[in-house]
């Protein structure tokens, strides 16, 4: 399977997951966005050495994931490219901060190790919650939510079309790659000298196709506004859950048990 098909599969899989019907899927996307932002803000506000405080925050993604029926391992697999930078930054800490702050039995643990663990944990927690948002809301729902908070229609159209055109673009790419491979049997990949014309051609073809598509959308009555018709309604429970979550997060952050 080549990279193009892999990319298409990932997009398909994510859209499919967002179509689910768990309790979390039924919460309004705006509320979920708010919950996520609050969680990330609170998580990153923990002090550099506050490992014990931060540890309690693990409970939130654990509970949310149970309700959302999303698997942790899939989340980790999808986000394997995101963590390395955080881990590299964290790994430097033990080398520069060697002051012993804690003894476990007779083994001294330095401040650097604690701050490394805190950083990695923060990274993981933020990613878990962001992924939860991704996995439980579709792009159309998010765009409608963005319109509700008065983000310009121009911008939501741009986001929606960009997302739709990725598939179109990848389709053009695989057609062109296949045509190239048929013309150059036995050759691995695309010859370096042909990259410019290949990609340039790809851009021109995709732009033409996108314009034709958009024109046909306009001819069928699209006026820059997404139609709300047919999308699921959200219950008032969304707001209640959001407030409850907010209270719990603040409680965990500022009240020491």
């Amino acid at each position, binding site marked *: 399977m080549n990279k193009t098909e892999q990319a298409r599969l990932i997009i398909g899989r994510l859209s499919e997951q967002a179509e689910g019907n768990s309790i979390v899927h039924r919460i309004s996307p705006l509320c979920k966005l708010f919950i996520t932002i609050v969680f990330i803000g609170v998580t990153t506000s923990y002090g550099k050495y506050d490992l014990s405080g931060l540890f309690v925050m693990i409970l939130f993604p654990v509970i949310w994931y149970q309700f959302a029926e999303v698997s942790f391992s899939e989340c980790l697999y999808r986000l394997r490219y995101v963590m390395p930078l955080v881990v590299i930054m*964290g790994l430097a800490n033990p080398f520069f901060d060697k002051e012993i702050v804690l003894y476990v039995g007779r083994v001294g643990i330095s401040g650097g190790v604690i701050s490394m663990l805190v*950083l990695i944990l923060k990274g993981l927690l933020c*990613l878990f919650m962001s992924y939860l948002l991704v996995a439980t809301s579709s792009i159309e729902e998010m765009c409608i939510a963005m319109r509700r908070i008065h983000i310009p229609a121009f911008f939501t159209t741009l986001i929606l079309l960009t997302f739709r055109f990725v598939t179109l673009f990848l389709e053009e790419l695989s057609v062109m790659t296949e045509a190239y491979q048929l013309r150059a049997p036995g050759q691995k990949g695309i010859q370096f000298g042909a990259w410019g014309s290949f990609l340039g051609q790809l851009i021109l073809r995709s732009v033409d196709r996108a314009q034709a598509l958009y024109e046909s959308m306009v001819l069928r009555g699209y006026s820059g506004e997404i139609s709300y018709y047919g999308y699921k309604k959200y219950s008032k429970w969304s707001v209640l859950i959001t407030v409850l979550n907010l209270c719990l997060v603040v409680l965990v952050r500022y009240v020491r048990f």
Partner: protein
Amino acid sequence: MHMADALLAPAVAATMYGASLATTGVAIYKLKKENSFDMEDSLKKIPTMAVMSSLVFAGQMINYTIPATGSSGHICGGVMLSALLGPWSAFLSMIAVLVIQCLFFADGGLMALGANVWNMSFYGCILGYFLIFRPIASGKILKNVNARSRLIIASIASCIITLQLGAFSVVLETGASGITELPFGAFVALMQPIHLAIGLVEGLATSAILVFVYENRPEMITCLTDSKEGKTSFKTTLVILAIVACVIAGVMSQFASSNPDGLEWSLFGNEEAGYAANMGLDEDDYGVQSSAAVVADSIQSKTAFLPDYAFANDEDNRLGTSVSGVLGSAMVAALAAIICLAGKIFRTKKQA
């Protein structure tokens, strides 16, 4: 270059959101002025923008290996977008890419979105375009070189420089958040060379694409065909430089060392750090005593509302340092403007 949430402190994230939102406002204003949002005009603009964003999006999904480093990188695409769409549309397209990555793929943090927009779209689409790409590509700088070569030079130069700036911003933002013990110098030495390699590859790819598009559809590369566009750049350049100065001053001043500067150190020493008083002078009472000096000192202590780069009554406050960094650069800019204005008035008088 996508930053994760954990790498940023909430205050730094908020600052970067502010900077990016302000630039977005300017971009929307500029496009509205050009009537880009009208149905007639958007027929061409929106699908082109969307398909170019999706190209960048797909390009960023596919990482390529950087030879001899064991690391991998992906294209950033800002320079290509601004060459084909114009800087302001390119900036919005890039935001669309980053929002999709953040909200639908969890790549790049939600709180770090402001910083990511700044590091990737601002430098690539706006700064790189106005200060590097357009002057070179439109023939302002290299007049005797043909358009094709100018495009190649412009793409490579702007890709490398904007990626370096972006990488340096990542270092500054992470440093200002205080989450890593990695010294500033070591982190810079880690980030810059790797982005030099990425920038070079991206520059080559961008130039190859742009040359092809130029040869087949020259009207798509506006800064080469539209002679009108190259003229009114001075004001825009000034505005951009002002914004950059403010942000850099704001972030940089978080690092401002509380140790005395060279001059202060040589005069008064730094006893807290264990140095002897170099010239043995008392900071509050030195020099020749005269009534004029006393008056001047009392005036200075009243007018300097940001003594030693912090708010007057709160010396340990980091926010004070960063506010005074921004204010300081604003005051310097105002002073420079006054000097220029005075010079202009002086010259016109002299001519008359």
